[in-house]
């Protein structure tokens, strides 16, 4: 009895010693601090904080699905730093309090955050993310969130997209100096950021902006469109929900306004092409985006569209949401790949600045993350509606950065 207990203790001690030795060997091989959360010998875990049950649940699910397409591709190609990527997802229901609780619970399990949805959520978590030196990808194009090395805003910001859009309309001869441009914009981050861009472009191009602020629940925009008709605008810029943008296009056409309508990146949903607004959208509406479209005739777009269809069956509602989440995941993998020898949170932050030319040809123009205060790109693409292409929009030209967009100074960041 006494002998067997001694043997047992010896076995436990030996096993412990081997385990410690094994861990040391792994840690040495990986060159990581044993304290780095979310990193094991075989896996790197990244957090995804999404709205999966609240007002943006549809968007949240699309982002998550697109991230999973990219993760599957990355892992099939061997993973990153000899490890597989794994996502730890939590639902915040667009509630900052829930988001803080979810963050606190998942934070010890993840190295960083692949994607966080919702400005109120980001605002609630910024201090925590900064205090822990973490890197977080965001689903937003607000230039007001630039300037923080902990946050990734991928692509041209709302204001720069709008500047490129107005410049494009002038170059196409749709607008001339002295013309009025209606700008229907949501109150809050998206609309006001875009309005800053339209005012800048208007000042430089000799245009006059006639602003119409709306709130997200407004359903009938007839009055706003009529006001723009009275003001004799020659084009309309819209930064609204997709449903509202469709309403603007339909009302404008019904009221006899034959003017181009330029929508911001978040103003289109594929199912709008089954509604009565489809003819008006097809004829008058174009959309600006810092990201490519799934309906583009490029190898990368076709590949992603095929992967999406394989996994989820039908076309997504938001093509740009899919491309954004897919590109963000690929970007995060690129950043991780630059810090394999130091898979820590500070290591990730350092590696982010080393990414100066990230691109997905056909889907994303070159992105430079060396200066957090600057947008990663000033290029955008004009997309037109075509019900015959995947997800309903296709590029009308290449990515471009207008001289005005290059000259524009983004708001001083916080």
């Amino acid at each position: 009895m006494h002998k067997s207990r001694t043997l047992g203790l010896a076995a436990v001690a030996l096993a412990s010693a081997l385990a410690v030795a094994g861990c040391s060997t792994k840690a040495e091989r990986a060159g990581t601090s044993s304290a780095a959360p979310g990193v094991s010998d075989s896996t790197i875990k990244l957090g995804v904080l999404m709205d999966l049950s609240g007002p943006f649940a549809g968007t949240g699910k699309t982002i998550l699905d697109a991230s999973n397409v990219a993760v599957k591709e990355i892992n099939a190609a061997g993973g990153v730093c000899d490890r597989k990527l794994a996502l730890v997802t939590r639902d915040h229901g667009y509630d900052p309090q829930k988001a803080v609780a979810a963050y606190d619970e998942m934070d010890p399990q993840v190295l960083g955050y692949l994607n966080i949805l919702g400005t109120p959520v980001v605002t609630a978590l910024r201090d925590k993310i900064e205090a822990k030196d973490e890197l977080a990808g965001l689903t937003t194009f607000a230039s007001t969130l630039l300037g923080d090395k902990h946050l990734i805003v991928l692509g041209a910001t709302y204001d720069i997209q709008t500047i490129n859009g107005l410049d494009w309309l002038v170059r196409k001869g749709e607008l001339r100096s002295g013309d009025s441009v209606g700008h229907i914009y949501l109150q809050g981050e998206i609309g006001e950021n875009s309005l800053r861009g339209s005012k800048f472009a208007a000042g430089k191009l000799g245009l006059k902006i006639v602003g119409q602020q709306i709130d997200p629940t407004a359903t009938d925009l007839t009055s706003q469109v009529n006001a723009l008709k009275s003001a004799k605008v020659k084009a309309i810029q819209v930064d609204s929900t997709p449903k509202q943008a469709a309403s603007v296009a339909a009302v404008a056409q019904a009221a006899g306004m034959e003017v181009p309508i330029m929508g911001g990146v978040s103003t289109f949903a594929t199912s709008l092409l089954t509604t009565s607004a489809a003819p008006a959208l097809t004829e008058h509406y174009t959309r600006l985006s810092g990201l490519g479209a799934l309906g583009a005739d490029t190898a990368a777009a076709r590949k992603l569209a095929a992967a999406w269809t394989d996994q989820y069956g039908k076309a997504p509602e938001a093509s740009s949401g899919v491309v954004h989440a897919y590109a963000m995941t690929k970007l995060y993998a690129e950043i991780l790949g630059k810090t394999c020898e130091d898979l820590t949170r500070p290591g990730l932050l350092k590696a982010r600045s080393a990414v100066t030319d990230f691109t997905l040809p056909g889907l994303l123009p070159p992105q430079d993350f060396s200066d957090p205060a600057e947008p990663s790109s000033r290029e955008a693409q004009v997309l037109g509606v075509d019900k015959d292409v995947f997800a309903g929009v296709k590029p009308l030209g290449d990515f471009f950065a207008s001289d005005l967009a290059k000259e524009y100074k983004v708001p001083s960041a916080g």
Partner: protein
Amino acid sequence: MTRGVEILLSGLSLGLLYALIALGFVIVFKATRTVNFAHASFVLFGVWVVAQTSPHIGFAAAVALGLVAAGTLGLAVERLLLSRVDGRKHDALAILTIGVNVVLTAELSWRIGERVLPLGAPWDGHVVHFGSVVLPLSVIITIITVPLLIAGLAACLRHTGWGLAMRASIEDREGAALAGVRLKRVSAGAWVTAGVLAVAAGIGLASFPSPGVAVSTGTAAIKALPAAIIGGLDSLGGAIVGGLVIGIAEVTVAEYQASLSFLGRGLGDVVAYVIMICILLWRPSGLFGAKEVSRA
């Protein structure tokens, strides 16, 4: 001047739709003394049925089906859930309706997702010109048909057996029961009527210039609850006045929000509740609500 007319008529149209929804709240409340918090999900359910079936069977048949479906849903909720709870426990019944709303909204949100489903209404895409005033045809149709619907409902309440039974049960529940009024039938009728009114209003909310049915259609319907409370919650006339007040205020505030920005962002979203609070401070029973009399 032109803008003023457009704002007034758009507000009137929206207000009439809110009034229809508010009437649904009021009828259920009058019959059961319960606030139906599931009413917004009834609106969404009804128009979802219309949008789903319209491409296959045509708009008119889809509307008929939507009305039947929402009426049946109201009946099912009343028969299968609420009738099993002691009718005097109004708080428990109200909480039960919150549960129904959560389940129904979650299911419909999952089914609709981010999509916008077209209603297929024949007036989609049409506007009407009155001189310089331009209005969607749906606004004109709403302004004509909703008052007719409301008049029909009022006539039902005044001249039919069910209406008489309902009025009797509101006046004195026990007395009405002793006189032979079947309270369960009154209650079931109220829930069916509420469901039907919800769909009628939902069709208006999802019609042009809105491109169709989305999850947000149900959210818009929630704004009718302050309208019902402003009117007094147990007054049909009050629901109509409350709906019109909220509708016109919402459109006007949205129109002039740039000038009202000193009051903060999103005033259009909260104006219904601000008006409700102001009116309740002035008249705690609402504009037309019956005052509660109690002996100390």
